[in-house]
């Protein structure tokens, strides 16, 4: 974004450069994971209420169930992709400094991958019954 006093809008800087050729991917992926999350999210809400206050043995027995494990796996993968895309838009909307924006976008990706990987590992460990 230009800092010089000017009557030109930021649009002027990008006009005639063509599209970035990746906007549709972002849009479609956000919708696809959103649709999956609508179903898997209902399952999660049920699971949270179902296991609220459960003790260690109950929680492990439930998480050992392959259907619950599969639902959680799909949810965490789909959810992490969805939340990364969503937070990316929030960062791009509000953070205008180039350096800060790049750093936050990288952190956003890192956060989504870490959360996703840790959850998938925990679910698999519980499900395979270690």
């Amino acid at each position: 974004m230009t800092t010089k006093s000017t009557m030109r809008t930021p649009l002027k800087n990008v006009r005639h450069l063509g599209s970035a050729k990746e906007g549709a991917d972002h849009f479609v992926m956000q919708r696809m994971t959103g649709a999956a999350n609508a179903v898997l999210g209902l399952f999660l809400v049920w699971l949270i209420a179902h296991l609220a206050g459960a003790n260690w043995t109950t929680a492990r027995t439930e998480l050992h169930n392959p259907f619950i494990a599969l639902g959680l796996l799909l949810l965490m993968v789909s959810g992490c992709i969805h939340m990364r895309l969503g937070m990316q838009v929030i960062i791009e909307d509000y953070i205008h400094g180039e350096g800060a924006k790049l750093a936050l976008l990288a952190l956003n990706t890192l956060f989504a991958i870490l959360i996703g990987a840790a959850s998938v590992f925990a679910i698999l460990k519980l499900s395979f019954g270690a």
Partner: protein
Amino acid sequence: MNETRAQRSGPIERPLSPHLQVYRPLINMMMSIVHRMTGAALYFGTLLLAWWLTAAATSEHYFNFVSAIFGSLPGRIVLIGYTWALLHHMLGGLRHFLWDTGRGYDLKTIDRLSWGTLILSLALTALIWLKPLTGFGVTP
């Protein structure tokens, strides 16, 4: 404006377009803001879910420690808030799917859909927590 143009050292920042403060709050605008806020809240809420799953996969001692935090009063408020955010964001998403098809854009429908996400999300949250909350804390 306290300073005159001559006193300014930096560039003159001219607004490109009017922002939120010039508009009267409308329900669809508020629900649009809440949709983004719940999305951001869920982003960090997923950390709690990952934490709980990791605890369950670690040891009984650590699971009980995490469970006690979620079972405390602030913990329960966060859990209820998390499920409400999830339901509200989900209903808002379904509304966006309808709008993606080009339908539901007349003002009356927009108002109804916006109020609908708010009312239905609150009702569903109450419905889901009614049973667990009455039995909460029976098991340690």
